């Protein structure tokens, strides 16, 4: 059984009298443990697809099953639960709380599922150590470099042990060297058994994945497996 399965997925925005189809009939399967890149130019609908997969949004038409559960009919609370337990987001702009320490930022998802304070802090510290920020736990985002901030975001995505790590242009705000660092981190997480989906418009980033889905005009235009020797990172 696929971890992610969509069938005839549509997302339509109504702009005045016009209808804008951001996604048109997307059908795809992603299995547990896959490392997938969703590629496409801006405006192609890749962010819309990511929002749907991440349960931040619901489809206008079509079905989406996550671990066999239909998402389309879920209410707000159920979607919040999925986002909390099944999805780990990594955003282009990091999206950390600026006034909170790295540790508190990583603890945040645990707060909303009622994890007791002691366990919360233990898990968050462990996640930060995983991204090699064990010595920066009490720094605020403004006291960290871009790469470190993104690593905090990765730790936050990991902390609840989600089904999928969903990274939306994770290197978009980083220089090439730091980008490489973050991608290597994602590679490592994949090797440890995590399912990873990266949305990007950069071929060099997409080449870290094992499978590349190309999106164009809201439709899947290509689905290719990257042979091992063509991949970036893992050798």
């Amino acid at each position: 059984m696929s971890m992610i399965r969509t069938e005839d997925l549509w997302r339509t925005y109504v702009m005045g009298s016009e209808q804008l189809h951001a996604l048109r009939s997307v059908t795809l399967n992603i299995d547990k443990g896959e490392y997938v890149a969703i590629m496409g130019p801006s405006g192609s609908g890749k962010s819309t697809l990511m929002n749907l997969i991440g349960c931040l949004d619901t489809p206008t038409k079509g079905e989406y099953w996550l671990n066999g559960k239909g998402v389309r009919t879920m209410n707000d609370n159920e979607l919040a639960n999925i986002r909390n337990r099944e999805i780990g987001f990594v955003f282009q702009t990091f999206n950390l709380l600026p006034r909170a320490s790295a540790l508190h930022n990583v603890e945040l998802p645990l707060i909303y599922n009622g994890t007791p304070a002691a366990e919360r802090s233990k898990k968050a510290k462990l996640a930060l150590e995983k991204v090699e920020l064990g010595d920066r736990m009490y720094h605020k985002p403004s006291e960290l470099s871009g790469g470190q901030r993104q690593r905090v975001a990765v730790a936050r995505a990991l902390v609840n042990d989600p089904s999928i790590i969903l990274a939306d242009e994770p290197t978009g705000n980083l220089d090439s060297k730091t980008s490489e660092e973050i991608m290597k981190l994602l590679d490592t997480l994949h090797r440890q058994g995590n399912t990873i989906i990266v949305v990007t418009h950069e071929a060099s980033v997409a080449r870290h994945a094992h499978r590349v889905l190309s999106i164009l005009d809201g439709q899947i235009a290509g689905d290719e497996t990257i042979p091992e020797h063509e991949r970036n990172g893992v050798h």
Partner: protein
Amino acid sequence: MAIFTSIFRISLGALVANKLRSGLTFLGIIIGVTSVMTIVSALEGMQAAIREDLETLGPSTFMVAKMMTAMSEQEFLDKIKRKPITVDMAEAVEENCVLCDKISPRAFEDATVKYGSEKLNNITVMGGSSNFIDIVDMDVAQGQFHSPEDDLYKRKVAFVGDLVRETFFEGTDPLGKTIKIEGDKYMVIGVAKRRGQMFGESQDNFLIIPFSTFIGQFGEPRRQGVFLTIKAASVEQLEETMDEVRVILRSYRKVPYSEPDDFDLMTADNVLDLLNQFTRLFRLSLIGISAISLVIGGIVVMNIMMVSVTERTREIGIRKSIGAKQRHILMQFLFEAVVLTLTGGLVGIVAGFLIARVLTAQIDMSIQPSAVAIIAGLVISTGIGLIFGVYPAMKAARLDPIKALSYE
């Protein structure tokens, strides 16, 4: 529970981080609660002072007179035509009332009082029996009240209020001095303890002489008649005693069975009730006016919370994207509003009480903090936080996570 306390901490953190904003909201609430508390405490203090004054009568005591209250002009005009209670009638009650423990007849006259070259106009001269001091809780500062013998022999002795003492005898011993009441000489035998002011009027410009002496000098009190202050044997027997006095007076005044009493009977409680009725509208309007400032405080809270929600749109988006439910966001912002208004309310309660205390001290009253006022203050300020905080909090809770995340 873990979620609850964690979210509460998040709210506190946000309040501390936005000191200026929190401070302004705080101020709005403090002003509102302070004004309401000042008014409520001052009113309660006044009420208590009046009650205390009336309770000098004691709970088993009542008063009888031709006319004590009139709630309308018509009632006043009707009652003014009544026959006064005469000295004979007062004596009839004294002779016939079995349940009465103590009976003190009294009569009043405004008179000019002189001591040497000093003169006081419009002093209330009261003729009262010697047991008056036992029935009414009046304290003797100096000397003594007149004795039954003074009453029996119509002695010309006077027990004076503190204002009279202050005017005539400041710095000297008043006892044994001779004053003139409407030309007749009286010897000062005692001074009452200072009673202070009520509604801006001194309670100390009086002078008491024996009842028999009063009648001897001023004659039968024609207009107002005799006032009777009667003490029943116990509080339980108050009603019965009043009934007995009523029957005696009705028969002496020849009131037919079908007619109502042509005199008034009142207990201290009756007087208090009446006073409350008179001042109700006044009190309500004062509270109403001060409540407006509370509403303004509430609007300040709402305004600031709206700004706060807009400013933190992105934060809300982040929280929602990692699994915060609508109710978690709602709670977070409601906590903020309630913590602000509740702490503001606490400060307001204390400030209001202190201001009320200073105000009432001006009219010789001392007020105590009342549990009702404190609880009301806390409930009101929490309520304001909830009422005016709920709309901004709901707005925050319902934000679309995608839009909130891309908010700049």
